[in-house]
């Protein structure tokens, strides 16, 4: 099962390697990872989506992260009210005659065309996991050539 956690860390070089190294050394899987500076430039915020079979593994991930000297706090969003979003960009096959059909998707699903030329449209969308999933299923009908995702961002309510 996938769990979203956030980690506040010291904004120093090597900290990302410490966190990433911990996951690989202990055999935990990172599904996605997003990192950026916070309002306080000495602190970075990481949103990590992890694969954990059970509570015990999640608890270990939490404790092991806390053990890293540069980790300030760890928040597990599994049982905590939060908002999460992900941004995706997708290249889909496109011809001008499809335009109306493609745009009709966006009545129901998040997203918009940000560029279209030479048989390819680039779509961007920001949404929660269900919204993104729904959109991608619709886009599949057109043929998705390339897909990039930021990974999940989460913030406590």
């Amino acid at each position, binding site marked *: 099962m996938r769990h979203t956690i956030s980690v506040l*860390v*010291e904004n120093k070089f*090597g900290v990302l*390697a*410490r966190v990433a*190294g*911990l996951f690989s*050394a202990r055999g935990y899987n990172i599904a996605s990872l997003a990192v950026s500076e916070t309002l306080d430039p000495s602190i970075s915020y990481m949103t990590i989506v992890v694969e954990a079979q059970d509570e*015990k593994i999640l*608890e*270990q991930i939490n*404790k*092991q992260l*806390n*053990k890293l*000297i*540069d*980790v*300030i706090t760890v928040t597990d969003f599994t049982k905590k009210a939060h908002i999460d979003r992900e941004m995706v960009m997708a290249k889909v096959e496109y011809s001008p005659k499809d335009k109306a059909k493609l745009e009709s998707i966006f009545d129901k699903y998040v997203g918009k065309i940000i560029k279209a030329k030479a048989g390819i449209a680039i779509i961007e969308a920001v949404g929660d996991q269900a919204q993104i999933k729904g959109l991608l299923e619709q886009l599949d009908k057109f043929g998705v050539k390339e897909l990039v995702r930021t990974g999940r961002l989460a913030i406590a309510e």
Partner: protein
Amino acid sequence: MTGAEILLESLKREGVEVMFGYPGGQVLPIFDKLYDSDIKFILTRHEQGAAHAADGYARATGKPGVCLATSGPGATNLVTGIANACMDSIPMIAITGQVKTFLIGNDAFQEADVTGITRPITKHNYLVKDVKELASTIREAFYIATSGRPGPVLIDIPSDVQLADTEFIWPEVPEIRSYKPTYFGHPGQIKKAAKLISDSKRPILYIGGGVISSGAHKELRILAESLKAPLTWTLMGIGAFPGDHELSLGMLGMHGTAYANHAIMESDLIIAIGARFDDRVTGRIDAFAPHAKVIHIDIDPSSISKNVRVDIPIGGDAKNIIGELLEQIKKAPDTTEWLKTVELWKKKYPMKYKDEGKLKPQYVVEEIYNLTKGDAIITTEVGQNQMWAAQWYKYNHPRTFISSGGLGTMGFGFPAAMGAKVAYPEKLVFDIAGDGSIQMNIQELATCVANKIHVKVAILNNGYLGMVRQWQELFYKRRYSHVAITAPDFVKLAESFGAVGIRVTKKEEVRGALEKAAKIDNTVFIDFVVEGEENVYPMVPAGKAINEIIGGLA
């Protein structure tokens, strides 16, 4: 001051009296300042020896050990020693030179990404790129290495930083917002634990190295005696409680005593203190201690509930928590029946070996105990020698048994003995070694002789890499694949280094040789030519429940 001067001044202020290490191109500025320093420097013959010696010094004293090496190969040679200290939670400071800051990342001569390499095997590490941060980094490194669950901290210092000049400012003990070890237990949890203890019928104390690093051995003894609960310990917990005490069951686990393993399997309450339920202790985890509730006291929250289900977790320092528990336990459990049962196991499954035929390694270890009365510091290598040293010598004081527990590093014992001897020159220090292990850091014989670090090495020479041979005998149909190992003539070898060598082949010669070795004012190698295919028993095969014991039983 230059960076090199700041380093040495900072080490002095941290109370460092001795360092172990090896010079090289990127630590020349530090060595130039060492020339005038009153910090004692022991030049080892290999950086691995320096790391293990610093580790041995730390285990013997409780103070952080310090080792120093140059960049690249000097630093990578420290790696095994650092990992070893990390697995056993030993406070250690490793200082490495690094290529000049502007060359970092250029694949410069003798460059290695040492902070990258040591990230997973240190408690924390630093690359100091600015001399202004050097003093505060060293202060922080010592604080981190010695607080909470101790561990090794590495400081990588580029040679231009060692030469750079700045004002020396010795900072206060740092406040680190992201690092706040817990020392006191949660009062509610301690109350609950006290009640569980009072209500138990078959309690057992399961002790690990955390009791020793916390300095909680006195409190532990009061707790054990007031509960009248039997105790067992891990390899790292040896010495935390007197081995000759009537409540002691000795070590548990793969090569633990049968009675310790039966006792923990049949217990209804395990009080684990500073131990981490390692696989060598628990055996098959789903069969481990099926009737027991578990109270787990540990300073590292990540050790709790990692391997076994815990009923009452208590994070904090062992010494404080035992003290708090003693106040909260209103009524000691009635363990009369339980102790009778344990006594029956002790009678039924005593530790034993067949003392006939060739000289037996167990006999040698027993005689070292009889000679020293448990007053020596014993270090071990890894393998059969280590298990026999753990089983056949009674340790009554903390920090008198020094052994590589978690990592299981062959070649540890000899340089570790050196470190312990430097800390306590007046004490007798024995390295109980195998003929395989001793060859792994045998170059340190030169260090011992040159610096008059007169340790005594008892080589249990069976001509095999004995523990691997034992596994091949028991589990691989006696197909001895590359375990017969040749060795030099240890007597001549010792003599060629300026040390003393003694060979013993008969039982009658053992005591005399040990007495002679103890008296000689020199480093001594005693080559005990022992039975080649002796096994370490009792033994629980890997993956079996720890009461499925083979060998050595009545």
